[in-house]
């Protein structure tokens, strides 16, 4: 299964997301996004596909805005 990178509209939301994932003990990695991706704040959170599905639900519940999700 491919990993996912979740991209947020700002660093603020990226760090909100990171905190939420830490609190829920979901394995993740804050990484720089490739420069061809125009959206976002330059940061992204890389997760396994399974963890990404869990994370997306949590982000929606906590109103953490997602700008884009890419598969790698």
């Amino acid at each position: 299964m491919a990993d996912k990178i979740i991209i947020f509209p700002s660093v603020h939301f990226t760090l909100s997301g990171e905190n939420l994932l830490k609190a829920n003990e979901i394995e993740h990695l804050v990484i720089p996004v490739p420069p061809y991706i125009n959206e976002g704040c330059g940061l992204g959170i890389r997760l396994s596909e399974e963890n990404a599905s869990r994370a997306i639900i949590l982000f929606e519940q906590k109103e953490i805005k997602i700008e884009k999700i890419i598969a790698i």
Partner: protein
Amino acid sequence: MIYLDNAATSWPKPEQVYLAVDRALRECGNAGRGVNSMSLSASRVLFETRALLAKLFNIKNPERIVFTQNVTEATNLGLKGILKQGDHVLISSLEHNAVVRTLEALKNIDVTYSITNCTTEGILDLTDLENKIKPNTKLICMTHASNVLGTILPIKEIGKIAKKNGLYFMVDGAQTAGVLPIDVFDMEIDLLGFTGHKGLLGPQGTGGLYIREGISINPLIHGGTGSHSSLLKQPEILPEGLESGTRNIPALAGLLEGVKYCLEKNNEIRNHELFLIKKLIEGIKKIPNIIFYGTDNPNLRVGLITINFINKDASLVGTILDRQFGIITRTGIHCSPLAHEVIGTSNQGALRISIGPFTTENEINILLNALEVIGGEL
């Protein structure tokens, strides 16, 4: 030395504020610039400071707080960001020049303003406020407490008037943030300007503006935000869209500790202030030849008292206090000519005594003795 100029800037700061500034200078990079560990450390300082300020002001979405250099910049951002050609604004007769001069400058795009009357004690006339609302009024902009009279304005009641009339409500929290409770939801505040280096006990060069969700503000400054970097247009997303350029990370790290201190102490800071203000009012009233401005109800005051001696220039009294007694106060017009007009001190100015959380009862006793000596010599 006794420092009684906390309304200008609080001093000293809690010890952890000094330590945090030092640590950030040594350990933080530039926030939002890349994904190295030092940049992330800086971003986390901004994130945590925003989160704690949101907690303090009951703000649901911390990203709606943007950091500025001070409350003056926050006021400029709010007023210039929201007002358009032909708009009308209502202010009080106690406003600081941060508000008044900005509105004067906006006259060049036909923005007008009216001044709501206050009594010589600084009590705002709410009926006058409502009567001055015009069809083109867009905003009510009021200080939470006067930096000259110390009077606290009825923010909750003003918020209700703004809401009832479909107006935006902006509050200048320069003299109250960190000391008095501010709840943007309960007080129906749309825009809240605050400074970090007074009641919030952080370093100078910090402040911010809260902007309610749903309100769009034009930036004062355009440029790099660390986000959407390939785009030529300024991103609209908050907070970065209104925070172009490097933030003052070490100072904001200090502010984070200042806000923590305020949250931990909760009502203690205000209770201490009330205790000392009561003592000051009682003491000052016994001194001969002294004029005391504002209300004598301590519950309607923040921790500052402005006085004059009959026929004596305020700046001379301030110099005597400093040179002969080692007591630091502030003299002059205090950047608020409107308030001085209200109390009739536009020529003389006034001497302002302002206390902080670390001011002691003994220091107030020493001040009162010094004032008694000066008053007795007249």
